[in-house]
């Protein structure tokens, strides 16, 4: 993992001191809430329906067990014992008191964490593949470049007041677990025909009220050009992005209005000036950062552990969990373990302080003390010996963390919705809970197979409903909560925007409607291997429409 040096420590400390002074000015009434707003937003502090909400950055979703323990402590000391992991690999606390926030930030700084750039119209926390460094088919570890971009974008003097927020995601494999096509800039590490490693740069993806899949602006960018090229894109966007209408201010709208060809020309022209300039990263610095992401000391093992096999034979429940929650590791004898934060009837992404501590302890015991946060609001232990999977599973089970539903119907992604968010039209969390209860039978979930359900409480799409296989969007009709259903979305390397299937359903009817969609799929699929999205692609919307609206 990356470790702060004196410079990283200094800037985070200085920012806390600065914010403490700003909070002081606010509490003393020297500045109004309006004047304070941009200052608190620079530190990830939002004012929500009932209280402040603090969003803490988890750069590229990587946490140490020590950091996780601090997050647990903060949940206990400053929140009501919970934290909420978000779709951008961050964590949110819903009940901090303003006067306490500087102390909270101090505690974060001690474990090399902060809340910088988790809000505001700046370059936000960089996200990456949660399997970075351990994925079997990885070309290079995206965390190296995510860290480089994190540092470059920290308090960037030119790009802190962009037309709108700006999100960058990276992946180092063909399988996209970081949804790079749905970001302002998506970066995929690739190999060209000569074997050289560089980047494919996608631009202009995003969700919100105008969902757009990013287009490729550069097929192959040499490594050393990364920062100059990013600077060129950001500069063009900073000058030309719309500022008159918040809904048209994201870079995706600029790319659409200029056209990809013209936009590319503008960026490439700017890039000719920046290439080779001061922003280009010195090789020594690249090497320094790379060294932090060296693999942990793996033991030399073989795949196919006997302990694992016999445990699978003996325990059906364990076998089911291995099937959905465990993935292939690049190192023989090891596995990647996903911890579902979606127990039946639970709040997606919520973790209690006790659960966070349990995960930290298990990470120390089984996974070199490393934890990842996924954009599906789950956690990952990146490197577990296959022979220890059963004991890890027992440990997770004690804490209710062994739900075997990763990538399945119960693994619902939901935004905070009307329970917390002042922009919401409708509740998300109780809908997620009700749907989760409908699919509480794990065997049934496994029979249904891979299925993503995403819920957003409004068109801002924080729950990524556009790219859920089944997406629910909260809308308001005459003061009542309704939910529009979209089908066929996906967030992987074949990213698709889902299509609205028909008129919206009421709060009470929507869980049943989701069930109808799933039942229709089960009746119509060719065989058990045809997943929901594949079946939808083959069948189109008609059978689902018929089933949903037949009785209306």
């Amino acid at each position, binding site marked *: 993992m990356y470790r702060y*040096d004196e*410079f990283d420590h*200094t*800037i985070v400390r*200085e*920012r806390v*001191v*600065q914010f403490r002074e*700003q909070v002081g000015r606010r509490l003393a009434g020297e500045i109004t809430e309006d004047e304070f707003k*941009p*200052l608190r937003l*620079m530190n990830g502090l939002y004012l929500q329906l009932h209280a402040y909400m603090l969003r803490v950055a988890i750069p590229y979703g990587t946490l140490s067990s020590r950091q996780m323990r601090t997050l647990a402590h903060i949940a206990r000391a400053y929140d009501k014992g919970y934290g909420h992991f978000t779709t951008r690999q961050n964590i949110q606390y819903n009940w901090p008191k303003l006067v306490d926030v500087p102390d909270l930030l101090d505690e974060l700084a001690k474990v090399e964490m902060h809340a910088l750039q988790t809000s505001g*119209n700046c370059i936000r926390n960089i996200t990456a593949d949660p399997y970075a460094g351990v994925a079997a088919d990885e070309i290079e570890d995206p965390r190296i470049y995510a860290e480089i971009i994190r*540092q*470059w*974008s*920290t*308090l*960037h*003097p*030119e*790009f*802190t*007041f*962009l037309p709108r927020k700006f999100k960058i995601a990276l992946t180092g494999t063909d399988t996209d677990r970081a949804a790079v096509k749905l970001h302002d800039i998506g970066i995929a590490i690739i190999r060209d025909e000569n074997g050289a490693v560089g980047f494919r740069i996608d631009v202009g993806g995003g969700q919100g009220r105008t969902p757009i899949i990013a287009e490729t602006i550069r097929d192959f960018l040499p490594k050393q050009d990364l920062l100059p090229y990013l600077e060129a894109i950001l*500069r063009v966007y*900073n*000058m030309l992005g719309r*500022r008159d209408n918040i809904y048209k201010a994201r870079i995706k709208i600029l790319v659409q209005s200029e056209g990809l060809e013209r936009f590319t020309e503008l960026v490439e022209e700017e890039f000719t*000036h920046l290439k080779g*300039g*001061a*922003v280009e*990263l*010195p090789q*020594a*610095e690249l090497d*320094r950062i790379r060294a932090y992401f060296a693999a942990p000391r793996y033991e030399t093992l073989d795949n196919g552990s006997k302990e694992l096999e016999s445990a699978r034979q003996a325990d059906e429940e364990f076998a089911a969990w291995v099937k959905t929650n465990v993935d292939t590791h690049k190192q023989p004898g090891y596995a990647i373990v996903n911890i579902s934060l979606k127990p039946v009837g639970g709040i997606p992404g919520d973790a209690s302080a006790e659960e966070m501590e349990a995960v930290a302890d298990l990470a120390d015991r089984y996974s070199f003390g490393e934890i990842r946060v996924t954009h599906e609001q789950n956690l990952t232990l990146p490197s577990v010996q296959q022979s220890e999977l059963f004991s890890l599973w027992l440990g997770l089970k004690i804490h209710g963390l062994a739900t075997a539903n990763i990538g399945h119907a119960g693994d619902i992604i939901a935004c905070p919705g009307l329970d917390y968010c002042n922009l919401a039209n409708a509740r998300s969390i109780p809908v997620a809970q009700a749907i989760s209860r409908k699919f509480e039978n794990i065997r049934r979930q496994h029979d249904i197979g891979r299925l993503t359900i995403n819920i957003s409480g409004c068109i801002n799409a924080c729950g990524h409903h556009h790219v859920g296989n089944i997406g629910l969007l909260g809308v308001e009709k005459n003061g009542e909560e309704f939910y529009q259903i979209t089908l066929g979305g996906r967030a992987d390397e074949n990213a698709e925007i889902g299509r609205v299937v028909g008129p919206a359903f009421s709060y009470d009817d929507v869980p049943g409607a989701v069930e109808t969609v799933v039942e229709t799929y089960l009746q119509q699929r060719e065989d058990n291997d045809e997943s929901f999205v594949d079946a939808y692609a083959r069948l189109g919307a008609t059978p689902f429409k018929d089933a949903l609206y037949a009785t209306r």
Partner: protein
Amino acid sequence: MPLVKNGEITPDPWTHIADGEDAPLDAPIIVSTDRWNAERASLVHRNAPIGIRLRNDQLPDELGEDLYRFGVVAIEFPAFKDGRAYTQARLLRERYRFTGEVRAFGDVLRDQLLFMQRCGIDAFEIRKLADAEAFRSTIGEISVFFQPAADDRRPVTALRNRAVASWAY
């Protein structure tokens, strides 16, 4: 409105002249690009320094070689949230090597001063006296910089690898 230059509140020798307003012949003035384009022939023959105001959608190359005639390029922050002038400032300094004064006007607030300075702005028309008075302390709140910009502060990438580089020789 207080002007801060070289870290101090200083009297402002320059006057902003609105379009259509009479321009004094013997005092330093700042005019819009429209005014400059319309009255260039007479403006170049004044005996006093002249400065130019850029709109946020203008790039310095519109001025061509005239850029180097100006003692001041004034760029606007219509609202603190509108960050186009940061790019304009960096381009003026880094690409066009403009060495005169680059001045910020408009919604110039204390908490953005460091960003402005890093982008090459060296004169600040600050609305609130308290913000102007806090200039030095505000600028000093952060001492570590993670990227090169138009100032001469050394970014950490250079500082970190200094030891390595000298060792290599």
